[in-house]
C-alpha cells in the first residue's frame, strides 16, 4: 500500500526536476562566485589563481569616503519607498472600492497600472522635463500657487523625495490590484449585518474592510522587508547627476561604479555580499514575522 502511494506520486515529483536543475544551475552554482569577495581577484588568474586576502576588500570599502552616506541613503530611500508604497495603494484601493460604476473603476485601475510597464530610462527623460524649474509643468503649477520654482532633480533635500514619489507613482497601480483582490474576498454577509446595525460607509470600511485586508497588508509589509536594501538601481542610475550624489548614491550604483568603471570585481562582490547577507537576515525575520502575524508560510 505504502509503496504503491510512493510509486503513484513519483511522476509528480519528477515534474519538479527541471525546475530544480534550473535553480541549481542558474541560482546556486553562480553563488560560488562570492569567493572572489575574499580574493585579490584578477580575471586572468581566475578563482584558483587569485591570492586570498581575507577581509581586505571589506576594509577597502569601509575606508572609502562615502560608504556611510551611501548605506544611509540606501536604507532611507528603501524604507520610505516601502512605507509610501504601502499606504498609497491601500488608500487608493479603498477609494476605488467605493466607486460603484465598474467602467470608471476599471478605467482608473488600468490608467494607474500603466507606468508599471515603462522603463526607468524612458521615465527618467520624462521626469527631467516634467520637473524642470523653468519649463516643467510641476513648477508651472507651483508658480501659480505663488511658490518659487524648485529644482527637484538637483537639490539634495528634494531628490530623495522625487525618487520615492516617482517610484510610488510607477508601482502603486500594481499593488492596488492586489488590495482590491483582497477586498473582494471579504465575506459580503458581514456588510449586510453591519448595514442592519446601522453602520455607514466609513464605519464599514473601518470595521470590516480594513480588518478583512489585514492579513494581506501584513503579508505585503513583511515581504517587502526583504527589499530594504534594494533602493532601486534602474531609477537612481537614470535620474542621478553630480549634484545629488550626496543624497542619491545607493549601494547598487556604488557597486556598478566599482565593478564596471574600475573593473574591481573583488571589491564589488564584497559590497554585494555584504548587501546579500543583510538582506538574507531581513528576509528571514520577515518570513518569521509573516508566519506569526499573518500565518503565511511558503511550505
Amino acid at each position, binding site marked *: 500500500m505504502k509503496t504503491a502511494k510512493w510509486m503513484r506520486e513519483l511522476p509528480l515529483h519528477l515534474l519538479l526536476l527541471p525546475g530544480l536543475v534550473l535553480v541549481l544551475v542558474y541560482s546556486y552554482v553562480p553563488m560560488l562566485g562570492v569567493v572572489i569577495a575574499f580574493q585579490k581577484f584578477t580575471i586572468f588568474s581566475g578563482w584558483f589563481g587569485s591570492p586570498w586576502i581575507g577581509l581586505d576588500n571589506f576594509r577597502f570599502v569601509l575606508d572609502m569616503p562615502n560608504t556611510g552616506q551611501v548605506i544611509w541613503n540606501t536604507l532611507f530611500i528603501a524604507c520610505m519607498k516601502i512605507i509610501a508604497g504601502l499606504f498609497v495603494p491601500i488608500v487608493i484601493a479603498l477609494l476605488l472600492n467605493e466607486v460603484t460604476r465598474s467602467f470608471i473603476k476599471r478605467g482608473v485601475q488600468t490608467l494607474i497600472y500603466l507606468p508599471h510597464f515603462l522603463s526607468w530610462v524612458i521615465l527618467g527623460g520624462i521626469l527631467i522635463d516634467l520637473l524642470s524649474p523653468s519649463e516643467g509643468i510641476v513648477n508651472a503649477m507651483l508658480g501659480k500657487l505663488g511658490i518659487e520654482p524648485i529644482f527637484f532633480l538637483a537639490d539634495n533635500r528634494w531628490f530623495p523625495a522625487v525618487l520615492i514619489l516617482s517610484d510610488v507613482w510607477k508601482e502603486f497601480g500594481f499593488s492596488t490590484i492586489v488590495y482590491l483582490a483582497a477586498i473582494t474576498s471579504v465575506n459580503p454577509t458581514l456588510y449586510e449585518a453591519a448595514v442592519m446595525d446601522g453602520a455607514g460607509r466609513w464605519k464599514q470600511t473601518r470595521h470590516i474592510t480594513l480588518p478583512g485586508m489585514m492579513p494581506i497588508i501584513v503579508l505585503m509589509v513583511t515581504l517587502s522587508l526583504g527589499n530594504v536594501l534594494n533602493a532601486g538601481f534602474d531609477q537612481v542610475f537614470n535620474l542621478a547627476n553630480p549634484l545629488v550624489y*550626496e543624497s542619491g548614491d545607493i549601494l547598487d550604483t556604488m557597486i556598478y561604479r566599482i565593478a564596471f568603471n574600475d573593473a574591481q570585481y573583488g571589491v564589488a562582490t564584497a559590497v554585494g555580499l555584504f548587501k546579500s547577507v543583510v538582506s538574507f537576515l531581513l528576509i528571514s525575520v520577515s518570513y518569521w514575522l509573516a508566519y506569526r502575524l499573518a500565518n503565511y508560510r511558503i511550505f
Partner: protein
Amino acid sequence: MKRNQRIALVCGILACALAATGCSDSGKNAASTEPSGKASGSSAASGTASGTASASASAPTEKGDPFGKYDPPIELHVARAVDQTWTYPKGDSIDNNVWYREYENLLGIKIVHDWTALTSEYNRKLNVSIASGSLPELFSVSASQLKQLADAGQLEDLTGVYEQYASDHTKELQHGDGGAALASATFNGKLLAIPVVNAPIYEPNLLWIRTDWLKKLNLSEPKTLDDVLKIAEAFTKQDPDGNGKPDTYGLAVNNYLYGPITSITGLSNAFHAYPQTWVKDASGKVVYGSTQPEMKQTLAKLQEMYKAGELDREFGVKDGTKVAEDIAANKFGMAFGANWNPYVFLDAVKKNPGMDWMPFPVPSVDGTPTKANVGFSASGYVVVRKGAKHPEAAIKMLNLHEEVVHGSRRNEGQFITVEENGERINTSPMSLVQSGVSDQGVLESLTLLRKAIENEDESLLKDALTETDKYGPTVDYLKTGNIENWAVAHQYFGFVTTMDNYTGDRLLMTAFGGQTPTMTDKWATLDKLEKETFTKIIMGAASVDEFDTFVADWNKLGGEAILKEINDWLSAQK
C-alpha cells in the same frame, strides 16, 4: 673548456639549421614563413649569421614582406565592436565587406568573428571574454585593458614582427607623434600592442559663436576674454532671438563638464587651466590639471556667469544630447568644442534658417596665448593574444590600412567612402587594424587642403594623407551656400582656426596616457568628487573656496599616490 665551447657551438649550429629547415618546410611561400616566436625568430637569424652561438641573443631580424600573402590562406579569429549607425554598400555586411575581401585577396587572411558587440557593450563583453579565458586572436583594447592584459602576460610580444613586417611607410606614420604612442604600448621593452596613432590636433576646444546673433546685436568678433564675456552677457540680456522673452543663455555647458562638445575646457584654457590632463609643472613634475589654482579662477568665473543667468540654470541635469536639443531650440549663442561641432549644430541650423556658427580661437585672461589641452596620441590599441599562430598578420593588416588610406594606394572611393545611389557610405570603420595620421601628417594635409580651397585647385591635394574629402563640399558651400554642405565647410573653418592658433607648443598633450594601479582603484571616487565639487561651485551651491578642500581631499583620497606612480613611471622610462 675549449672542448665544451666547441660542443656548444656545434649544437648551436645544428639547432639553428634544424629550426631553419623546419621553418622553410612549414609553408610554401617564403615571405609568409617568417617564424613567429621570439626564440625561433632569433635562431633562424643566427643561422645566417654564420653560426656564432651568442648571436641568438640580439641578432638583427630579417626583413619580412609587408604584404606577403599566406598560401594557403589562414583564418584569423577576431572580436570587434560594431555600431548601429554603420551602413554597408549593397550586398556587404560586417562579415563580408571591402576590407575583409582585401585581407583575403591580398594577404590571404580570412577573418572569422568570434563575436561582435555594439560599441557601448564592447568593453563589458570583452571583460567577460577575458574572464572566461576565451580570448580571440586579435582585438582592440583600451589603455587600461592593455595594462591589465600586459601585466597578466596574456599578450603576444610584437617587437620582432613589428620590426620585420611593418613597412617603412607604416613606421613613418606611426612615429609621426615622436614615438609617444608606440612607447605607451611598450612594456619592459616589449611591444605588446599596435597603437592607434591619432592626431590630438583635432581636439582643441574652439570657441563657437552664433554669428547671426553677433550681427543682430551689432557686436564685433571677440579679440579678448573680456569681449567673450561681454558677448555672453549680451546674448543673455539683449534677447538675440527677438522673441521678447529672456530665454537665451550666453554659454552652453552640459553636466559632464568636459569633453568635445559644450564643455568648460575651452574657458579653462583661457585661464591657463588644463582640466583632466596630466601636465608638467615648472619643475618638470607631472601634476593634475584639475587641481591647479588656475582651475579655481575658472570655476569662480563660471559661478559668476551662472549667477548672472548666462548659463542654463539646469545644466547640471542635462547631458550633451539634451543640450543639443536646447541649441536647436535657439537657446544658446556660444559653446566651447572641437572642430567637428558643426555636425552637432547641423540639426539646429537646418531647423532655424539664418542660424550660423563660426569658430574662434580662445583668447586668454592675460594676453599670453592660450594653450589647448588635448589627449594622448594613442586613442586605442590592437593586441594579439599570446600564442596566436600568426601575430605578423596584424602588422600586415596595418600596412594595408596605411597604404590604402594614407598611402600610395589611396583610393578614397573604395576603402573610405563608397558612393552608392548618391549616398556616401563610410567603409573605413570596417578596417580591423587601423592607425590614424599623427599631428605632423594632419597639419601638412590641412595646409594642402587650405591651398587647394583657396585656389580652387583639387590637384594640389594629391600628396595629402587625409581630409581630402572636405575639398568638394567646402568649395561648393563657399560658392552656393548649400546647407547640406554647411557642416563640412564649417569644420574646415574650424581647421583653419586650429592651424592658425593651436600648433606647436600651443597644443598641450597630456603627459601620461596610461593607467596606474591606484588609478584603477580610486579613479571612480576621484572623478566623482571632481564633478560633484565643480558642479556645485558653478551652481553656487558651494563657495569657490570649496575648491581648496577639494584639492586636499583629492590628494588624500589617492591623487597623491597616482601622481607618484605616474612620475615614477615616467622617470623610469627615461
